[in-house]
C-alpha cells in the first residue's frame, strides 16, 4: 500500500483512506520504537534533507530521528548558514539539494504554499513540516494517531481547539483531518484570533471558553505566539490566560475522561496552567513519541508512491 501522491503537503487534499493508511502504518512503527534496536533497514540507501527556513526543535529532531530509524541518510540544512543568505531562491536551493540525490525533502517555510510550490517543481518527495499559517500535516496526523490510540476512534468525538486559530497551521491541519474522520470540532478563542469564517470549514466557533469546553472529549490548546502580543489581538498574556487559559477548574466543564493535548512548545501560564500540562489528563509527551512513529510511516509510505 502506498499514498496516492508523491508528496505530503497538507491534509486538505489527503483522502480519508490515505489518512487511515498512515495511522495504521504508524502503529507498526510504534512497535519498532519500543525495542532495544530502534532501527529498521526499510529505506537503506535513501537520503532525507531537512530544509528549515524557520526555527524548530521538535519537528526537525523528530523528522531527523524518523529518517535515521528507517536507515536513510539525513542532512540538515540550516538556512542561516546556507547559500540562502547569499540570495538564492527557495526553488534553486531545493533543486540543488535534489540534484545531490535527495529522495525526501522536508521543508518548513514562513510562506504559506511553499511546500506545494516545491512539490510542483521537484521530482523528490516533498513533506510539509509547516508552511506559514497554512498547514502542518504531520502534527495533525500525530494528533489523530494519539486520539485513535486513546479513544479507539475519532468519529463522533467532540474536539475543542483553543487559542490562536487564525495563525495556527496546526489548527488548520487538524480541522481538515479531524473533520474528514467525523469529529465535531469547536474552536475557542478571542474573536480577533478565531474569525467566524472558520465556521465555513465545518467547526462551530465559541468565544466563551466554559461554553465551548462543555462535553468535550479532547481539548487541544495552541501556543499563543509571543510575536503576536502587542499587535492588538489581545490586551495581555495575563488577560488571555484569565479568559482562555486552560486550568483544572475550567477542565471540569469537559467530559470526565477528557484528554488534553498541546502541539508544543508550551507557554505555561499563558494558554495552559502547569497542573493541567503535567496532569493525568495530559498526553502532551505521548504526542511527541507518537510523532516519531507517524513521521516514519509518512516517509515509508511516500517512498512507494508512484512518480
Amino acid at each position, binding site marked *: *500500500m*502506498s499514498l496516492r501522491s508523491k508528496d505530503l503537503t497538507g491534509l486538505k487534499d489527503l483522502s480519508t483512506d490515505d489518512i487511515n493508511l498512515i495511522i*495504521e*502504518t504508524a*502503529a*507498526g*512503527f510504534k*512497535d*519498532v520504537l519500543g*525495542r*532495544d*534496536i530502534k*532501527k*529498521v*533497514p*526499510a*529505506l537503506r*540507501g535513501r537520503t532525507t534533507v531537512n530544509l528549515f527556513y524557520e526555527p524548530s526543535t521538535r519537528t526537525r529532531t523528530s523528522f531527523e530521528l524518523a529518517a535515521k530509524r*528507517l536507515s536513510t541518510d539525513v542532512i540538515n540544512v540550516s538556512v542561516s548558514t546556507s547559500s540562502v543568505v547569499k540570495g538564492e531562491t527557495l526553488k534553486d536551493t531545493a533543486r540543488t539539494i535534489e540534484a545531490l540525490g535527495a529522495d525526501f525533502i522536508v521543508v518548513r517555510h514562513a510562506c504559506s504554499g511553499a511546500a506545494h510550490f516545491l512539490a510542483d517543481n521537484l521530482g523528490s518527495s516533498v513533506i510539509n513540516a509547516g508552511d506559514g499559517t497554512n498547514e502542518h500535516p504531520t502534527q495533525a496526523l500525530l494528533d489523530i494517531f494519539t486520539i485513535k490510540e486513546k479513544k479507539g476512534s475519532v468519529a463522533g468525538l467532540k474536539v475543542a481547539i483553543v487559542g490562536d486559530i487564525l495563525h495556527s497551521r496546526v489548527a488548520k491541519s487538524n480541522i481538515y483531518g479531524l473533520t474528514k474522520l467525523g469529529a465535531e470540532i469547536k474552536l475557542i478563542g478571542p474573536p480577533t484570533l478565531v474569525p467566524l469564517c472558520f465556521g465555513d470549514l465545518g467547526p462551530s466557533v465559541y468565544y466563551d471558553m466554559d461554553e465551548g469546553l462543555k462535553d468535550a472529549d479532547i481539548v487541544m490548546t495552541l501556543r499563543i505566539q509571543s510575536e503576536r502580543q502587542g499587535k492588538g489581538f489581545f490586551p495581555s498574556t495575563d488577560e488571555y490566560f484569565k479568559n482562555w487559559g486552560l486550568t483544572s477548574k475550567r477542565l471540569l466543564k469537559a467530559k470526565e475522561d477528557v484528554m488534553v493535548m498541546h502541539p508544543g512548545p508550551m507557554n505555561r501560564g499563558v494558554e495552559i496552567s502547569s497542573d493541567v500540562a503535567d496532569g493525568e489528563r495530559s498526553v502532551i509527551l505521548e504526542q511527541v513519541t507518537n510523532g516519531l512513529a507517524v513521521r516514519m*510511516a509518512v516517509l*515509508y*509510505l511516500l*517512498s*512507494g508512491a*508512484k512518480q
Partner: protein
Amino acid sequence: MPKVLLDKKDIERAITRMSHEIIEKNKGVSSILLAGIQRGGVHIARRLASKLGLIEGTEIPVGILDIALYRDDINVRKEQPVVRRTHMPAEIHGLKVVLVDDVLFTGRSIRAAMDAIMDLGRPSAVQLAVLVDRGHRELPIKADFVGKNIPTSLDETVRVQLSEDGLEDMVVLE
C-alpha cells in the same frame, strides 16, 4: 482448474505431526517460542501452539512477526508492503524461536524474518516450520519442520485458506 492439495483433515494431521517433531527435536518445549510470520504464519503458529500445549500440558508462547520493513524488494516494488504489528509475548533472548509460515517458496521472506528476529534479541536457536514447502528456493534456506512438500511449477500459486479468516480449511493449487 484449482486442485485441493490438503483438506481440513490433512492440515490437522500435518499440524499434529509437526508438533511431535518439534517436541522431539527440542527434547520438550521448555524454552520454545513460536513466531508466526504475518499474516498466514500467525494462524499456523497458534494452531501449532495449541497442539503442543495439549501434548505437553503447558502453554507455549506465540509471537507475531511482521517482516515488511526487512524485505529485500522494498526499493523495487511500486507499492510498499503493508506494515503490520510485531508483538513478542516475552524477551526472546536465550529462547529457541521457531519461525512459522504457511508457504515456503523462494526463502526471501524467511531471510527477512531472520533479520527481523535478530533485531528483537539473541535467540539461542532459530528453527523454521512451514505448512507447505513448494520448492523454488532462491536462497540457501531449508525448513526444519514441513507439513507437506508439494512440487509446483513457477506459474502456479499455492493458496492456504484457514477457518480463522472465515474460510474452510484448505490448501489449493491454482
